[in-house]
């Protein structure tokens, strides 16, 4: 636990935690503007905020938190809803989701692998497949598996803590949602949903507004920025990039970007039989524990903003890197030719090593470094249009992975953005919403363990 939160007095710790999420009195934001946004990290933050508010309001059984609005029906939104239902006996929750079901991004996403902690690799314990969360727990798997697990567990929380369906209102398909930060009021046009077990029927559309005691924003990942010329399917949609081509030819691809989404697609397009869940075991079959330990020690010295290209180039035991490179070189895809386009939004990338800053996970940077050593892809820093022409990639094989515009998305929600825009910038700059377990152990009632069950 970071020093600033390792406060023995729980109320004081709760105050410190709550402050990191606070945008405006009664208005909270979970993640979105933090770096290293993962499903697991967002869930940790949701636990932390819910616990902090409970710790600060439990003296009167949360009597001053009666009406809670949660904006966003993804994993984070469901997690904080379940946390509140289990902790605050008297709270009523309204959950707003823009799409037509809960956890819509990950549902049916069979291509994408979710692992709770691998983003932290090589940190000790980062390969452990279980999230070990008291609320909406899950283990590594396809995104679709994780969505299913989370939704199934969410239903258990509803059954246990809202058996009469009186405490949670779900509004789906919201095509208008405007928040006023100063009054904590929300105006919406959406469809009220009716729970049917673990599913939600759509009821009649409605336009309405209400004032809440607390509003929690969980817009999460949101949808990605799109290139006007080369629209790319969302990261979460199923496609065939990871599958061998069936027409016997070699295809040209351009992957534009250098965040995790781009680097994972680079791996899928360049490595045969690539699986995010097994690649570490395959690259370091005999000494993964030892490699982890050595990387960890050396990487800590480099610091959190260290450049991984320099790290791997100068690593004290080059044999470790060389062996992994040999393993990887056996399995470079023969049916693709891939260009990694790394110009940057403001042309900030001048050379390849520039992308090895803190823009992606250590693991994805290591894979990119090894692929580079294997000569598995080409590089381009020119205008995307030029790169496409030069390398002869068809339109549909140009993948633009430019991340999301979280700040723009947040701005679009508020009618009085001037009241909060400075604070949003401050939250983005401070990066204080630590993805750590800051809640007191054993704080969250488990739906399986209700005393009256």
């Amino acid at each position: 636990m970071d020093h600033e939160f390792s406060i023995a007095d729980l109320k004081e710790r709760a105050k410190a935690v709550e402050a990191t999420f606070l945008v405006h009195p009664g208005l909270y934001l979970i993640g979105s503007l933090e770096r290293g946004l993962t499903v697991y990290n967002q869930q940790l933050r949701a636990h932390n905020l819910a616990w902090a508010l409970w710790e600060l309001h439990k003296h009167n059984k949360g009597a001053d938190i009666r009406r809670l609005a949660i904006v966003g029906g993804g994993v984070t939104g469901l997690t904080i809803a379940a946390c509140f239902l289990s902790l605050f006996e008297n709270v009523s929750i309204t959950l707003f989701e823009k799409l037509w079901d809960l956890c819509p991004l990950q549902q049916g996403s069979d291509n994408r692998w979710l692992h709770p902690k691998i983003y932290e690799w090589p940190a000790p314990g980062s390969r452990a497949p279980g999230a070990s969360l008291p609320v909406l727990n899950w283990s590594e798997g396809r995104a679709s598996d994780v969505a299913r697990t989370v939704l199934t567990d969410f239903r258990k929380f509803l059954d246990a803590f809202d058996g009469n369906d009186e405490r949670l209102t779900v509004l789906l398909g919201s095509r208008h949602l405007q928040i006023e930060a100063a009054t904590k009021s929300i105006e919406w046009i959406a469809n009220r949903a009716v729970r049917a077990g673990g599913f939600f029927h759509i009821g009649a559309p409605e336009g309405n507004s209400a004032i809440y005691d607390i509003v929690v924003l969980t817009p999460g990942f949101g949808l990605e920025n799109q290139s006007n010329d080369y629209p790319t399917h969302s990261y979460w949609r199923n496609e065939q990039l990871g599958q061998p081509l069936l027409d016997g030819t070699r295809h040209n691809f351009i992957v534009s970007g250098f965040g995790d989404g781009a680097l994972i697609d680079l791996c899928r397009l360049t490595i045969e039989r690539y699986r995010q869940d097994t690649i570490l075991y395959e690259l370091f079959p005999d000494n993964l524990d030892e490699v982890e330990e050595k990387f960890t020690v050396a990487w800590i010295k480099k610091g959190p903003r260290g450049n991984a290209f320099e790290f791997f180039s100068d690593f004290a035991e080059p044999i470790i890197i060389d062996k992994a490179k040999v393993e990887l070189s056996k399995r470079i895809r023969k049916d693709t030719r891939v260009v990694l386009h790394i110009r940057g939004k403001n042309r900030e990338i001048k050379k390849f090593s520039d992308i090895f800053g803190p823009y992606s996970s250590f693991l994805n940077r290591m894979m990119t470094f090894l692929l580079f050593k294997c000569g598995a892809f080409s590089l381009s820093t020119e205008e995307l249009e030029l790169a496409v022409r030069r390398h002869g990639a068809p339109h549909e094989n140009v993948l633009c992975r430019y991340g999301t515009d979280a700040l723009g998305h947040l701005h679009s929600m508020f009618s009085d953005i001037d009241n909060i825009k400075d604070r949003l910038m401050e939250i983005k700059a401070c990066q204080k919403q630590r993805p750590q377990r800051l809640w007191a152990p054993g704080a969250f009632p488990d739906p399986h363990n209700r005393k009256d069950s």
Partner: protein
Amino acid sequence: MEKLYENPEPVPAASQLALLPFAAAMEGFLRNDSDIPGLRLTLHRTMSREGNGYLQQACAYLGGDEPEWRGKVGRLFPVTEGIIGAAYDKKRIYRTKEYASIDELLPDLQESMRLTGDDRNPEDVANSYLAIPFLGAHDHVVLILFAECKSFNFFADNDRVKHLAAMCQGFCRLFDWLQNQPVSNLRNFPLMKGQPIAESPTVYPLIQEPVDSIDPPRFRMVSSFNYEAAAA
């Protein structure tokens, strides 16, 4: 200090499944062919959470008509909790010492409960306890077997405790082997060592004793117990 540990936190299903058959075998051994009133046993593991070390109940209680898991599996305790805390601290087997009669035991039990702030009715609690720590290669505690019953002097029997310790040592040998030869898709993902969270010890001071004549079981390879099902 506020009681923090009311609700459980998850223990991986694979870890529970690795411990339950062993606990069941021990229960079967203890019961042999007679009923042991109030017998129940479970295993705790040492675990860390954000740098803090706790004891965590890692599987259900066995001994009753069916496993007792609701509200139990996953509970976190300070490392000073009861007889398991004493076994953790001293790295020795702990048990209820031998008494000449139940009438001599009961006043000591009552006084121990008073001293440790245990406000339960003495008639409701067990009168025989056992805690066997499983040590790791660096002499730290990995697991602790906890057993209790209302059969007078039950764990004061050296032969019985020796048999249990031998079974535990067999368990250690197996999991040392599995550490290097894991079953497909089941791995022991290491837990970091945490700074132990200690409160006032709550071992019953007058009736429990370390067992110096029987060594606790010991792993050679296993340093923590956290089996999880994994894709690779």
